[in-house]
């Protein structure tokens, strides 16, 4: 489902000339990455769906004014982030009752594990270990780590999305990594055996 950059650009050009199918293709391809990113700010699935739709409708309405060459992924992430945070702010303002925990808009993510690859107990230990470290990071650092390592965005793309300088991104990453590179306790690996590695090799190829 991931489009190559060249393909992305073709679809983008088609969208700009008024091809509704191009918009549908982009929306389908980017729904999951955008939705997953949005879920870091709120667990309200309906709000996420609304926001993704709004993003693509606005794109369509403004297609005459959009740049012909863009970094699509970072452009969509940037616009989506802005739109979603504006919506969340509005909910915070208008909400009179005590705030539903799903609307607390601090950036968070939880790591899980793919137990197909390694023994589940070991996998759980591993994700727990990293979750504990990540939970201790300040929000901004957490968001940069998420975009960098779990969305594979570049330094420049992250700088665009968060509307900060690329150098600042590097600095934040450096600080975050210094806190994350704490040695994984030996106990986490106590179930790791050689056959498992072989199993993995089979699984991959």
């Amino acid at each position, binding site marked *: 489902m991931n489009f190559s950059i060249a393909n992305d650009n073709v679809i983008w050009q088609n969208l700009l000339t008024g091809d509704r199918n191009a918009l549908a293709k982009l929306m389908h391809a980017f729904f999951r990455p955008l939705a997953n990113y949005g879920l870091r700010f709120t667990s309200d*699935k*309906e709000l996420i769906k*609304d926001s993704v*739709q709004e993003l693509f*409708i606005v794109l369509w309405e403004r297609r005459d004014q959009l740049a012909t060459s863009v970094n699509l992924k970072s452009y969509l992430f940037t616009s989506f982030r802005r739109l979603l945070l504006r919506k969340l702010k509005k909910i915070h303002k208008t909400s009179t009752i005590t705030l539903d925990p799903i609307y607390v808009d601090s950036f968070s993510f*939880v790591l899980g594990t*793919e137990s197909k690859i*390694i023994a589940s107990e070991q996998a759980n230990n*591993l994700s727990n270990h990293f979750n504990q470290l990540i939970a201790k990071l300040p929000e901004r650092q957490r968001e940069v780590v998420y975009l960098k390592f779990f969305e594979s965005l570049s330094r420049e793309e992250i700088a665009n999305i968060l509307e900060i300088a690329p150098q600042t991104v590097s600095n934040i990453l450096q600080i975050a990594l210094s806190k994350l590179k704490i040695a994984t306790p030996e106990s986490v690996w106590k179930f790791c055996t050689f056959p498992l*590695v072989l199993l993995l090799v089979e699984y991959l190829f």
Partner: protein
Amino acid sequence: MLIQDPYLNYSLEDFFWDERFRADVLNGGKDFAYWEEWVKLHPTHQPLVEKAKLMILSVYVDNITFHEDEIQQLVRDTQKILELDYVDDFPMEDATPARKMNRYWAIAASIVLMVVASWIFVEKNKSVNLSFQPSYENLIKAIPHQLIERVNQTNAPLIITLPDGTRTTLSTNSKISYPEKFIALDKREVFLVGEAFFEVVRNTQKPFLVYAEGLVTKVLGTKFRVRSYAIDKEVVVEVASGRVSVFANPKFANDDKKASNELSSIVLIPNQKVSFLKSDASIVKTLVNNPILLKPEQEAKKLINFDDTPIYTVFAVLKEVYGIDIVFDEELLAECSLNANLDGYSLYEQLNIICKALNGSYEVLDGRVIINAKGCFKK
């Protein structure tokens, strides 16, 4: 001068958080071939590289899943909105001939209108209060533009596609009114008497509003049912998917209700319903009579087969499968467990079975299930 390979000094964590190594592992194949070569050159580092690779492949971000169907539905809805907006740009081309044809109809309609108007005038004088009641007729009267009215007098449900693509299943003896086009920029309004099931095309910018007597149901894109027969004392709204908010029509609320905060909306989630009492405009939230599974049946079947399962897990599963909130004393019931296959039973039957096992009871309050039980002894 020889530049030393920095990877030789890498720890497990360094590899795990290394941008290039991570990308090569995740892409696999050719990209990872570099590291296979590298390991051959530095065999002592092989266990480390393997461990780091396992770690990267094992740990991923835990996401709430969206079903493929759900995403496709959203894309389709969005396409529909765009197509309709496109049509809106060129609506006038063949409007003129149609208008000429309709001339006699227009004359006939104005005669009907005059008759209706004078009848209303007479009715109005009979009872001053009547115009202030939020009946279907009064609601429609307040709309400045013309509406299409569809009536189902057959014995079978009638499926109607509204101008925005929304599907409406109109029950017997029911009536719905809607504009030829949803021209208002910020909303889509329809008026109902009787019963209808709506499958609304999601349009974030134009909420869909159903007016039924004094109750307004507002949604973006969901499936839900509204029942509002003139002879009933209440209006009922039931949600099948998505999220729905309901509120009393502010136009018809009396002043002390307006002053207090009673007009604020109530949000409904799947398997919840509200009853709106026409007499005093009060709204009560409960559960639908027959809650449906929100997960695919096969998946749900497996989940609700409990084998010595702690009771808090049982409730967590039911919560997930039906999307409803179950409230219980976690501490009190910590030692309880359940050994039963609940497949084939309705939610209420399932709750009865669980409560029998717990020697307790349940009640439905404000759209949630409340469990009353004393707890179990340690085995």
